[in-house]
């Protein structure tokens, strides 16, 4: 077995028993990235100096005979829309190609304080807008299981890095499925925490009422370890709700599982449905109670999502104006822009890719005079109905099980020319963000060589429950 095959727990034990040093481990990962990244393109940039420095710190503690934390010395990868001080953060966009972060995101501060070894920044769809990483301004990431296929998105680089053993774990961000869908496509575990569980300070803003940072790992146990480190209060993000770490054990015989019928419909690949139903059967045989339930407003979730998200994005991305920071035509010697308006128009035209401009326009349209009531206000009302559906469901069951995606990974190029078909990739994941709930995707089988993910959805701040169900399913 190679050092890069280990889970977080295995790596931690190896370090503690001095089977290998953190520096050796770090070099093993950097060598593997050197060799394999050109095929997969999971990483946009490496942060080798930071990685080596953190590994050395871990080794010093170990050689002094001190205790190390679970993440100490363990190499990880960070989605390139999360700020690491003094390193470039592109968000997958030309407009931030040369943007050097002046500060650390809160999650990075927390990881650094545990001596986590940060290897580099991973590829993503531009500003996290997409489901395949094909919208990255720097080229697509490839699925390690089939290089002709997408790894999913937008955290495609983070998921591919873990699947290809280029990092022991990674961080992604999830606005409508961007952690869970790539985790499902790459056969790894991905958690989208409850809105308000993890600080968004230092995450490049996309849709602020839905964005959450979440871990991508090899096992559910690892996922819990990373979540427990990055979660919790932060005075720099007022939306984080103070909660305590909960590791209470779940009794399988008391567990009530809901199966929402709207998630098992036409359009789901029959093989995906078969694999997911098999997993449900297994947990039922082990003692859990299964109940079919209904989330009647599910059919509106994606439409609702694609009004609210572009609306918030159009406001958030107004900051990229060619004046304050980021790409500006002012610096273009041949065509430095004509007047203030010219600088706005041309900097944003050249700096943003097609999908970002599409969403900015969609949001601007939905918020404009004459359309606001019909689109934005209506969507906010429907959002409440979707939330109520879930509230009602969780009064009868503990968790919901669904497929994470209707199909396994699709081919590179298959959907990029048809934005609507790309949007439909989020059909089973976006309602969770509208309702602010926690959800995890775990691998439950394969169709040929392609992994299939099962989604476990919980009530607000019930991360412990979904992680526990995930841990149980992993053992069955």
């Amino acid at each position, binding site marked *: 077995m190679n050092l890069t095959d280990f889970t977080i727990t295995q790596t931690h034990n190896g370090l503690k028993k001095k089977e290998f040093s953190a520096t050796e481990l770090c070099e093993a990962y950097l060598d593997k990235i050197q060799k394999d990244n050109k095929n997969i393109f999971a990483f946009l940039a490496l942060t080798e100096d930071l990685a080596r420095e953190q590994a050395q710190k871990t080794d010093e503690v170990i050689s002094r005979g001190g205790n190390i934390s679970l993440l100490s010395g363990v190499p990880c990868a960070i989605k390139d829309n999360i700020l690491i001080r003094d390193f470039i953060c592109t968000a997958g966009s030309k407009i931030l190609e040369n*943007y*050097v972060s*002046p*500060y650390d995101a809160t999650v990075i501060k927390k990881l650094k304080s545990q001596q986590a070894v940060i290897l580099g920044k991973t590829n993503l769809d531009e500003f996290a807008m997409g489901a395949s990483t094909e919208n990255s301004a720097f080229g697509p990431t490839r699925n390690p299981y089939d290089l002709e296929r997408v790894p999913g998105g937008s955290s495609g680089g983070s998921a591919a890095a873990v699947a290809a053993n280029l990092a022991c774990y990674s961080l992604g961000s999830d606005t409508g499925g961007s952690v869970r869908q790539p985790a499902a496509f790459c056969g790894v575990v991905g958690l989208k925490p409850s809105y308000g569980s993890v600080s968004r300070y230092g995450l490049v803003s996309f849709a602020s*009422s839905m964005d959450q940072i979440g871990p991508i790992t090899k096992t559910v146990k690892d996922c819990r370890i990373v979540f427990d480190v990055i979660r919790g209060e932060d*005075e720099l993000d*007022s*939306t984080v709700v103070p909660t305590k770490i909960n590791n209470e054990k779940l009794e399988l015989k008391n567990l009530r599982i809901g199966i929402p019928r709207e998630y098992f419909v036409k359009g789901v690949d029959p093989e995906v449905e078969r694999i997911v139903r098999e997993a449900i059967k297994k947990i039922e045989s082990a003692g859990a109670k299964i109940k079919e339930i209904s989330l009647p*407003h599910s059919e*509106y979730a*994606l*439409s*609702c999502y*694609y*009004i609210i998200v572009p609306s918030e994005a*159009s406001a958030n991305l*107004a900051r990229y*104006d*060619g*004046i*304050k*920071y*980021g790409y*500006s035509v*002012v*610096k273009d010697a041949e065509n430095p*822009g004509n*007047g*203030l*308006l010219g*600088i*706005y*128009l*041309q900097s*944003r*035209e*050249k700096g943003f890719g*097609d999908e970002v*401009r*599409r969403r*900015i*326009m*969609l949001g*601007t*349209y939905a918020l*404009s005079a004459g359309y606001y009531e*019909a*689109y934005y*206000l*209506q*969507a*906010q*009302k*429907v*959002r*409440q*109905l979707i939330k109520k559906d879930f509230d009602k469901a969780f009064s009868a069951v503990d968790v919901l099980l669904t497929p994470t995606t209707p199909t396994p990974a699709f081919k590179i190029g298959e959907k990029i020319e048809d*934005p*609507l078909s790309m*949007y439909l990739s989020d059909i089973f994941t976006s309602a969770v963000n509208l309702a602010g709930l926690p959800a995890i995707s775990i691998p439950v089988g394969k169709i040929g060589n392609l992994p299939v993910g099962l989604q476990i959805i919980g009530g607000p701040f019930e991360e412990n429950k979904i992680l526990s169900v995930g841990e149980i399913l992993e053992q069955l």
Partner: protein
Amino acid sequence: MISEKDVNHIAGLARLGLTSSEVKKFQKDLSSILGYIEKLKKANVKTVRNIDQSPSLKNVMRDDVAVKQSEDVTNKIIGLMPDTKERFLKVKSIF
């Protein structure tokens, strides 16, 4: 179906420059997406009274004080500005 005029109007509001071939492409894309979103209008929202996210939550406020950053951080932020004069951000004249 939205018109070319609509696309130009929205792009103007959003301060996005578009070439004429892009106007046609986005007209097609946006029309297809808006066509799908149309179904939202069928949802019965009569029972929804307010659209507050979470009526039970309160605003979290902090004291209105500036947090002083080190000169190193300030210099880095100034370094990110596209156009400066001394330590000031330079903006094109508005009139």
